[in-house]
């Protein structure tokens, strides 16, 4: 970057300023807020920060940075784990003693009796299936080793997701092998057989003649076959009732019959009205939307522009060029104002006192939308009032987007759309009226997650018999009369439709581990052929649809994973949805608003017991193992709270206690709570984590509600990963530096070019901005005291990460968990900085605390050519390979941790305790056999998926050729819906990674350390609207 330009940017950064709201600790230290702000303003360059503590430079933060692995003394916080640890240590010491002078134990070989067809032992097989999810199925290709599914990834040939996946889908693998799944059919706690249940249900229902008194409470039916079976049951027993209930979609647009699909490939301007379409599969069409959004951001020539108007800060909003933080209840009014301004007929926006900033945002947005009519798209939020969905469609129609970037179809992903809130209300009324003889619950947990004002548990007792089909003996399963273990989708036959309507067949990868049954089996017991398998039922459904000879077509379908020509026909009617009701008026600005959202990692609570997803830091807040009351800094100050304080939230008659944390950009007087926590019977992992937000969620306000908050004594003890992996060295080493040398703190205090980006205009003026100018150091090959490595001519592995594409969705981290057998450590260990994720996503906030922008930087081992870790390892356990990998030899590692100490990127992970589970049988089935399971006392880190490199090299060597570009795909790359990660051979100048490395925007993080990393980042180029860019608004720190 040229001097002039950096000067200009400094100016704008300083004008924007950094607002500090979290000043209570500083006041105690005698450091005034104004002083900190002044200090930060005087720092040159762009300013980034990662946590409020970091900004405020509190004593706690200092303490954390000074210990790279903080507070080892807290190891014994939990007396049970201490005893467990002593026991384990005793055992492993005995083993260590023996290992020196004994031989390996005899290993048996269990030979097959008859070898399965097509099995080559040691070579995985891949089968197509789909993850049936309430927002649309995710087509999958599952890696199967000896018929055990060991890795789930998107189906690369499927038009919808093209190989990508998401954290939920990745996490379902651990859900399959969850040792806490229920394992027996039980009746009042006694083990029974499935046939007994089936017979009893069949006889009972047949006895009613017309099905009166028989109620089914099912999760949203996503399977066309199940819908067909239900219709057959309905025909036979007209008075039997079906209620669908999925807490995360109840009351949203996803449950209704309308279906608009967005195509971002041709959209120059994208407007999100509280739509979090970039952060996870809870938004319908996530995979396609991210792919198309990111594809336009790979090159500065094709940049789109994203506006986000949102309540809860999400990665979508933080990625947006322009984000307007509004209270959730203001958004329908804003949408109406937007509709009116772009010329939608018949909309009268309620009068509202918008601030100047909001007015300016609206007028600029309208101007931009009008200029891009037909090339823009307005996406309504899922968790918004129905009027927002209707208004967004009207806006798209007025702009001429419908038929271009927006397609409307009469068909829906879920075959039986219904009003779930009204239906469950009706069910409870019937229960209370004593009308329910049999209540059959199919994969729902209403005792835990039904709306609080229904008092479901009380009504539940009035049903004569309750049968519960579920994967776990959960809150509902505990008190139901019958409990039937439910088969996982990887164990069963079914079908589902993806976002684009394509039908995928769900085929089993493994026999049910615990004899689980599916909803297909339950409904089929009531039909003419009660024993008909789900397989036969699914085949019967699609026999008329599959073209040509059915058996041939069916085999092709199973092979490819979808049925041809079943995508929605979008050419059909483009009927506008009438505004059913008036646009609701915003709640008063000083009232407290509580926003309910499904959790970004464990969704509605169904994945509570999946350790990978529990430990995954949530986007924006980096909170793991808990949910929290998320507020703005100003609200925190106003309420006189500190982070981690306990508050009591009240809505209606419900009350919950919750820890409070700050999310930058959260609207004031507003609290976001994630659903899905506070489980009582989730299993060994999920039980007891967080608080149950369903207790304050009512039928009259399932999306956001007015409530109240008050402080309660005590601290909760939340685990936030964002100040982990600090580098303390420069403070201790020669007394230089300020002690804040985590990557993030560096950026907060003084720029080191970890995040480099430019606006489009700046890029055009200076395309080489990423590698020019002060603090944008590039690697110098002549300055090391160590001789340069001589590398192979054939292969030099490298990675490129596109900062413009990454949306921080976390899919890569969960994929890495599965591929590399990474251990889950638990909340207490996360609290002291010991989570084992090889890959983390650093979130760098920039600018105003109440209106920040964020940069997401996936950070894993950089495979430095001049690696600081290698130089300090006393036992040669981390060594360099001729192809440039920085490789770990686990059985050499003695655990000095010098390497981690010397790593400037803080990407090494140490097994302080025996984190890997060597005991649980079901988890052994899940492990990747090509990767060592690490034991206690061993350092580990990203290996660039060396097992995949080796496999590809062996294949290439056999064929006497070089490894082809794209033949090796790392696990993170494979999962990434944005294709932000590229891996390959940088010696092959034609490879994609070599081209990206030579891109003028590619830069190396901490190049000034001369580590020469093999991972390069492509600097982002943003495309702001010049009207909005020129007038930054400074938010006062405590405006609440």
């Amino acid at each position, binding site marked *: 970057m040229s001097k002039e330009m950096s000067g200009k940017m400094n100016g704008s950064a300083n004008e924007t300023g950094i607002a500090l709201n979290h000043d209570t600790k500083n006041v105690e230290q005698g450091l005034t807020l104004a002083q900190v702000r002044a200090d930060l303003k005087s720092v040159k360059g762009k300013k980034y920060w990662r946590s409020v503590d970091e900004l405020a430079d509190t004593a706690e933060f200092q303490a954390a940075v000074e210990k790279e692995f903080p507070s080892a003394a807290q190891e014994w916080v939990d007396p049970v784990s201490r005893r467990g640890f002593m026991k384990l240590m005793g055992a492993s010491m005995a083993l260590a003693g023996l290992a020196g002078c004994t031989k390996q134990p005899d290993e*048996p070989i269990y030979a097959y009796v008859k070898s399965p067809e097509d099995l080559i032992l040691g*070579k995985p097989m891949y089968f197509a299936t789909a993850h049936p999810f309430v927002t649309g199925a995710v087509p999958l290709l599952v890696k199967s080793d000896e018929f055990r599914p060991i890795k789930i990834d998107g189906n690369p040939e499927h038009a919808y997701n093209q190989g990508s996946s998401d954290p939920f889908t990745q996490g379902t693998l651990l859900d399959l092998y969850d040792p806490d799944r229920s394992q027996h059919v039980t009746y009042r706690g006694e083990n029974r057989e499935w046939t007994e249940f089936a017979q009893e249900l069949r006889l009972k229902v047949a006895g009613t003649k017309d099905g009166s008194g028989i109620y089914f409470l099912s999760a949203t039916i996503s399977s066309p076959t199940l819908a067909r079976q239900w219709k057959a049951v309905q025909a036979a027993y007209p008075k039997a009732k079906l209620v669908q209930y999925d807490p995360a979609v109840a009351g949203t647009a996803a449950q209704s019959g309308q279906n608009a699909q967005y195509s971002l490939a041709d959209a120059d301007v994208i407007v999100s009205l509280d739509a979090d379409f970039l952060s996870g599969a809870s938004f319908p069409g996530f995979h396609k939307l991210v792919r198309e959004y990111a594809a336009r951001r790979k090159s500065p020539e094709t940049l789109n522009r994203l506006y986000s108007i949102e309540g809860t800060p999400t990665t979508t909003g933080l990625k947006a060029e322009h984000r307007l933080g509004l209270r959730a209840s203001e958004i329908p009014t804003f949408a109406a104002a937007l509709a009116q301004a772009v010329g939608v007929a018949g909309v009268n926006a309620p009068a509202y006192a918008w601030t100047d900033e909001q007015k300016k945002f609206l007028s600029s947005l309208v101007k931009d939308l009008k200029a891009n009519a037909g090339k823009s798209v307005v996406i309504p939020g899922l968790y918004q009032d129905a009027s927002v969905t209707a208004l967004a469609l009207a806006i798209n129609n007025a702009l001429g987007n419908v038929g271009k970037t927006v397609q409307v179809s009469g068909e829906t992903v879920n075959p039986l759309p219904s009003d779930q809130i009204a239906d469950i209300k009706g069910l409870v009324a019937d229960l209370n009226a004593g009308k329910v003889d049999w209540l059959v619950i199919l994969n729902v947990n209403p005792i835990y997650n039904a709306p609080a004002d229904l008092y479901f548990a009380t009504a539940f007792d009035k049903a004569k018999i309750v049968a519960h089909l579920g994967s776990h003996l959960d809150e509902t399963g505990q008190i139901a009369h019958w409990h039937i273990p439910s088969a996982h989708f990887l164990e069963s036959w079914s079908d589902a439709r993806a976002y684009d309507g394509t039908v995928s067949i769900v085929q089993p990868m493994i026999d049910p581990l615990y004899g689980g049954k599916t909803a297909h089996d339950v409904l089929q017991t009531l039909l003419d052929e009660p024993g008909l398998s789900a397989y036969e039922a699914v085949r019967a459904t699609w026999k008329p649809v599959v073209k040509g000879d059915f058996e041939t077509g069916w085999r092709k379908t199973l092979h490819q994973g979808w049925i041809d020509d079943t995508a929605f026909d979008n050419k059909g009617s483009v009927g506008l949805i009438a505004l059913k009701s008036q646009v609701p008026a915003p709640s008063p600005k000083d009232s407290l608003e509580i926003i309910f959202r499904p959790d970004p990692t464990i969704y509605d609570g169904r994945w509570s017991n999946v350790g990978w997803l529990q430990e995954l830091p949530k986007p924006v807040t980096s909170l793991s193992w808990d949910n929290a009351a998320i507020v703005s800094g100003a609200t925190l100050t106003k309420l006189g709270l500190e982070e981690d304080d306990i508050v009591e939230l009240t809505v209606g008659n419900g009350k919950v206690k919750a820890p409070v944390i700050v999310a930058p950009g959260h609207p004031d007087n507003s609290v976001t709570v994630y659903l899905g926590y506070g489980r009582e019977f989730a299993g060994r992992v999920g039980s007891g984590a967080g608080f149950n937000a369903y207790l304050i969620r009512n039928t009259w306000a399932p999306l956001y509600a007015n409530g109240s908050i008050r402080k309660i004594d005590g601290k909760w003890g939340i685990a936030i990963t964002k100040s982990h992996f600090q580098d303390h060295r420069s403070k201790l080493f020669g007394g230089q530096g300020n002690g804040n040398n985590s990557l993030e703190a560096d950026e907060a205090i003084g720029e080191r070019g970890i995040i480099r980006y430019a606006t489009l205009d700046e890029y055009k003026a200076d395309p080489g901005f990423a590698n020019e100018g002060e603090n944008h150091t590039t690697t110098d090959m002549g300055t090391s005291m160590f001789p340069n490595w001589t590398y192979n001519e054939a292969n030099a592995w490298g990675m490129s990460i596109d900062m413009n594409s990454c949306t921080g969705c976390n899919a890569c981290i969960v994929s890495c968990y599965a591929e590399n057998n990474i251990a889950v450590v638990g909340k207490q260990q996360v609290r002291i900085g010991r989570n084992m994720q090889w890959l983390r996503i650093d979130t760098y906030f920039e600018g105003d605390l109440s209106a920040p922008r964020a940069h997401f930087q996936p950070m894993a081992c950089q495979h430095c050519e001049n690696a600081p870790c290698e130089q300090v390892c006393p036992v040669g356990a981390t060594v360099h390979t001729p192809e440039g990998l920085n490789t770990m030899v686990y059985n050499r590692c003695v655990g000095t941790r010098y390497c981690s100490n010397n790593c400037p990127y803080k990407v090494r992970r140490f097994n302080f305790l025996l984190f890997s589970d060597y005991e649980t049988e079901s988890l052994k089935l899940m492990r990747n056999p090509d990767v060592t399971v690490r034991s206690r006392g061993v350092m580990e880190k990203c290996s660039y998926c060396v097992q995949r490199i080796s496999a590809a090299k062996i294949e290439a060597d*056999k064929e*006497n050729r070089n490894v082809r570009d794209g033949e090796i795909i790392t696990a993170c790359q494979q999962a990434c819906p944005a294709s932000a990660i590229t891996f390959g051979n940088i010696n092959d100048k034609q490879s994609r990674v070599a081209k990206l490395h030579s891109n003028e925007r590619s830069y190396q993080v901490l190049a000034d350390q001369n580590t020469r990393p093999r991972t390069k980042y492509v600097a982002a180029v943003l495309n702001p609207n010049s009207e909005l860019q020129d007038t930054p608004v400074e938010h006062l720190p405590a405006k609440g």
Partner: protein
Amino acid sequence: MAQIFDRSSNALARASLVLTGLIVIALGVTLDQLQRSPWVTRQGQRPDQPVPFSHKHHVQGLGLQCQYCHVTVEKSSYAGIPPTKTCINCHSQIWTNAQLLEPVRSSWATGQSLVWTKVHDLPDFSYFSHEIHVNKGIGCASCHGRVDQMPLMYAQNTLQMEWCLDCHRNPAKNIRPTSEIYNMAWEKPAEDRPVWCSAGDEKSGLPTAQSVNCVTQDPGGAGAAEVASLQMPLGGPHGMTADVAAETLPVVPAYKKFTSQDELGHFLVDHYKIRTPKDLTSCETCHR
């Protein structure tokens, strides 16, 4: 007061110092030897197996080819242990009542696996691949020894890291033509046992196994030399007509004669494109 120690104890003291040193050295040497001894490595030990299967009888006596049972040796990291079905293929016809074969029959009848004890057992942190070794010219016997002469299976070699590295540092000394992989009696070329090899077109893109032809009889004279290869012999059976063969086959270059393993090894290392010792001894080759 009399001296406690007599003058002669000086010698004792000196001797004990030397002795202590010797004991320490002896202990070290003992442990070192112990670690390499068959007691630890199980080299040469014959564990109890459910059936005293004789490779000698089946390979040398009956002439079964290795891959009849170890079917995936060219395709996967595992060579493969035959399923009971493979045994029953023959033993439903012959020796149907032999007492020794009772476990096989009962496995077949009950569907329960035969449980063998692993003879060649690598530590779990080493990732060995049969397929790449077999495809690059390491014969079965190079690691497993003369299996055709073993009535009961045992490990010929230690399978310790130093043994692996010994070859990875200089693969030329063990490499053989891929056509001779399954030849248990293969011996290194010598003056009286020459080998003739011809390298095919380097750019033909043929897999390793087909890029080089080696024969053990002088191909110059007859012209119809035994063209052996791991895969389907070039221009061999399968009804390929002479015309087609002539069109599709590259011109066979001249054969070169080898009379020592060193020459042959280096020739094969070049033409099989074996990676350099630096690559082969890199940690990530076997550990990950």
